């Protein structure tokens, strides 16, 4: 059952995982990520991106539970994760991975320390508990208050006030801590934030109401204080949950950079070494399909390297002994031994990380719209309340009680209930809307920044193009097609895969003695004749053509011994929706530029197809940053869309940034949005949602201000009773939330954006 509906692209994965070295690395990584429990069992958390339905759950759990050594195996469908508990630390978790591979669910280790989610989880749990307690208290106190408002008098009223106080005081002490500690921090740093007036209002209201209840006074504000906390906690909780959700979704995408590698010792034995223990001088063996863990120089073997994530070059580069290689590049065709020249934390990746940090510090200056509002609002509220107090003291000629009462009602009535909900509710709904279309958002401020962007810069390789080449044309004859396909299937070189896909209709051919010649191509025997698929000059050696003719032809060729030579023309595949996305963004009034590390010819070709006027080729990470900084100095706000390691600093520099799910780890970390669907239409869609969210946030602020314009004069004049305060506060909050809900509804989907998510879309990233 699982096989019919789930399961990844097995063909690809088997080819990628066939090497023993790779499995060894995966198991070692997993062992290190295991978490020992007190009773001696070990808990492993695996990311399994192909889990997506109920049948997947039962297939995996039935497959694993009952195997020797497994205490329990449980799938989490929401997070696409599997938690396996093994009986002892001595048992290698390799068999779990092997079993999962056999079931068709390739898995990768999730390092719990890596996620750092334990503390975050505690934070949102704490908020949820505070919210629950506040909700309970708000409901019960409101019940008692309604009785008072509807006419309870004398002893009954006093009793109800006392019960309310008994509930409210411990609840505020527990649930209000979030606000009190934040307000205290702000005051210590001599700043004002929104939490200062909130804390002040809640504490003063509580204090005054307690005094009133004990002295048998007629009015108490317990309900207002607790309801205020309840509403504000809803806003806080939504904000926190959205961030947790986005982060775990981003981390849930499989990791790409090597976390360690296989080191060949002096005695010739292979051992796994984690990336931070790799030192210069070590000799590392990198199997085809693995990424190179540290910068080094090849000492043995030859291969082709896919450098697209590192430099943005689209075509693989062939390498041989004495070539320098960078960490993060993908080894494609042959096993290579490299002598490490730099430690991992000094490698190219580390340089990129440093540039990125520098860029992110610059961006840290962005102030969220809610905080900007708080900067004006908080002092205004305090001044207003003080003004009310002074005015009443003058008018009533020193009536402390009445003046303080009015001042506190002003604080309560102006308390930013609606303001506290105005932004998070819109952002949560926006995030849900984006998530529904496969776009993950890191935090709410990204939505604000995306709405402000007016200039879009795209990377080419892996962003506008998919990074996988395709065959545009071929002169191969129908007789040769089966042989060429069989050869192509043997290799994971992107060009071979493109040929295999192009010839997918051809029959099977019985080829013997197939082997890959790194840097050149694939060779095999068919009916006693040698056949080759690869570089033209190499394939041409066995064919019936002159050497210089074959060389002049260039590109990829197929040849059989003494026979014809046939050529293939490669071209880059555009990401689906790329042209429409460029059109849509221009339509939204954005200027678009293409900035790539690839050669001028291929950049111009893509720009021409998409109708992008400005292009820059041969861009390095530093020149990309320089270009963005230049534009920002001119007053533009830049949206950067890119995927590679070389784009990461630019992603961090841009005012806002997006990356596809196929991007490098660092690229994904640097980006504000990650889109998991193939289509480029994700970019204009996200911007449209951001623009709409921005409008709604401003409307909400407008509504909150309007409410204050009516409520504040009443409060200053002393007309506000606890009943009016409760109605006004709840009323304004409901209006703001209802207005925010409009983001979830309506709004057209962009054309071509209805494609369903494909099963196993991230298998490639995982392998």
């Amino acid at each position, binding site marked *: 059952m699982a096989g019919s509906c789930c399961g990844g692209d097995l063909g690809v994965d088997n080819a990628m995982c066939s090497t023993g070295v790779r499995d060894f690395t995966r198991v070692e990584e997993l062992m290190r990520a295991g978490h020992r429990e007190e009773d001696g069992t070990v808990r492993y958390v695996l990311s399994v991106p192909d889990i997506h339905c*109920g049948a997947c759950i*039962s297939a995996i759990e039935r497959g694993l539970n009952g195997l020797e050594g497994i205490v329990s195996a*449980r799938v989490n*469908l929401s997070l696409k994760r599997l938690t396996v508990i093994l009986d002892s630390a001595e048992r290698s978790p390799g068999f779990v991975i092997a079993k999962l591979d056999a079931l068709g669910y390739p898995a990768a280790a999730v390092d719990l320390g890596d996620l750092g989610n334990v503390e975050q989880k505690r934070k949102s749990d704490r908020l949820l508990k505070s919210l629950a*307690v506040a909700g309970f208290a708000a*409901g*019960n106190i409101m019940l*008692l208050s309604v009785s008072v408002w509807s006419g309870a008098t004398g002893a009954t009223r006093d*009793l109800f006030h006392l*019960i309310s106080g008994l509930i409210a005081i411990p609840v505020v002490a527990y649930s209000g801590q979030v606000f009190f500690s934040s307000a205290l921090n702000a005051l210590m740093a001599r700043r004002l934030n929104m939490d200062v007036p909130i804390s002040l209002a809640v504490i003063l209201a509580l204090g005054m109401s307690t005094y009133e209840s004990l002295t048998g006074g007629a009015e108490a504000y317990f309900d207002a204080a607790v309801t205020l906390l309840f509403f504000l906690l809803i806003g806080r909780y939504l904000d926190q949950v959205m961030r947790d959700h986005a982060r775990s979704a981003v981390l849930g995408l499989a990791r790409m950079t090597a976390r360690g590698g296989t080191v060949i010792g002096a005695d010739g034995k292979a051992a796994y070494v984690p990336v931070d223990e790799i030192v210069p001088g070590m000799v590392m063996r990198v199997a085809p399909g693995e990424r190179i863990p540290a910068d080094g120089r090849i000492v043995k073997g030859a291969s082709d390297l896919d450098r697209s994530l590192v430099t943005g070059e689209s075509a693989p580069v062939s390498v041989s002994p004495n070539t320098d290689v960078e960490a993060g590049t993908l080894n494609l065709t042959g096993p290579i031994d490299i002598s490490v020249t730099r430690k991992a934390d000094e490698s190219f990746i580390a340089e990129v990380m440093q540039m990125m940090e520098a860029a992110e510090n610059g961006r840290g200056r962005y102030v969220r719209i809610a905080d900007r509002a708080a900067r004006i609002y908080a002092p205004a509220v305090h001044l207003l309340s003080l003004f009310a107090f002074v005015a009443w003291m003058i008018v009533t000629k020193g009536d402390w009680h009445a003046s303080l009462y009015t001042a506190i009602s002003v604080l309560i009535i102006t308390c930013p209930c609606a303001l506290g909900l105005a932004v998070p509710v819109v952002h949560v709904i926006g995030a849900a809307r984006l998530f529904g279309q496969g776009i993950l958002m890191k935090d709410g401020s990204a939505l604000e920044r995306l709405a402000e962007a007016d200039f879009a810069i795209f990377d080419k390789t892996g962003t506008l193009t998919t990074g996988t080449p395709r065959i545009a044309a071929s002169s191969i004859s129908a007789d040769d097609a089966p042989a060429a396909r069989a050869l192509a299937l043997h290799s994971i070189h992107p060009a071979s895969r493109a040929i295999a896909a192009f010839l997918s209709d051809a029959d099977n051919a019985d080829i013997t003695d197939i082997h890959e010649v790194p840097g050149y191509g694939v060779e095999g025997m068919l009916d006693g004749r040698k056949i080759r698929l690869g570089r033209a000059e190499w394939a041409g050696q066995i064919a019936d053509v002159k050497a210089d003719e074959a060389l002049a032809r260039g590109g990829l060729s197929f040849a059989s011994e003494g026979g014809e030579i046939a050529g293939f023309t490669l071209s880059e595949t555009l990401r689906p929706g790329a042209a429409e996305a460029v059109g849509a963004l221009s339509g939204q009034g954005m200027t678009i530029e293409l900035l790539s590390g690839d050669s001028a010819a291929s950049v111009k070709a893509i720009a021409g197809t998409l109708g992008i006027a400005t292009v820059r080729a041969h861009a390095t990470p530093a020149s990309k940053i320089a270009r963005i900084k230049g534009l920002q100095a001119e007053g533009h706000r830049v949206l950067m869309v890119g995927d590679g390691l070389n784009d990461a600093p630019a992603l961090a520099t841009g005012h806002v940034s997006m990356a596809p799910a196929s991007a490098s780890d660092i690229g994904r970390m640097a980006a504000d949005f990650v889109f998991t669907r193939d289509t480029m239409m994700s970019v204009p869609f996200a911007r449209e949602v951001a623009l709409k969210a921005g409008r709604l946030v401003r409307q909400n602020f407008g509504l909150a201000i309007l409410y204050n314009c009516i409520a504040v004069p009443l409060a200053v004049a002393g007309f506000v009773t606890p009943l009016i305060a409760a109605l006004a506060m709840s009323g304004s909050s409901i209006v703001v939330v209802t207005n925010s809900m409009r983001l979830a509804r309506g709004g057209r989907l962009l054309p071509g954006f209805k494609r369903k998510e494909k099963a196993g879309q991230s298998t490639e990233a995982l392998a």
Partner: protein
Amino acid sequence: MNVLIFLVPIALGLGVLGLGAFLWSIRTGQYNDLDGAAERILDEDADEKPLG
């Protein structure tokens, strides 16, 4: 109004009961995998107890 002596504690007690149930459900991980829970209900053999 003597009935209040019973009614108020009963109202509060029911509220505390609900609050307690909610806190229990958080602590035992009932909300850890909402999508999974929706699918598991259809599977007769599925283990319904969440991972704590």
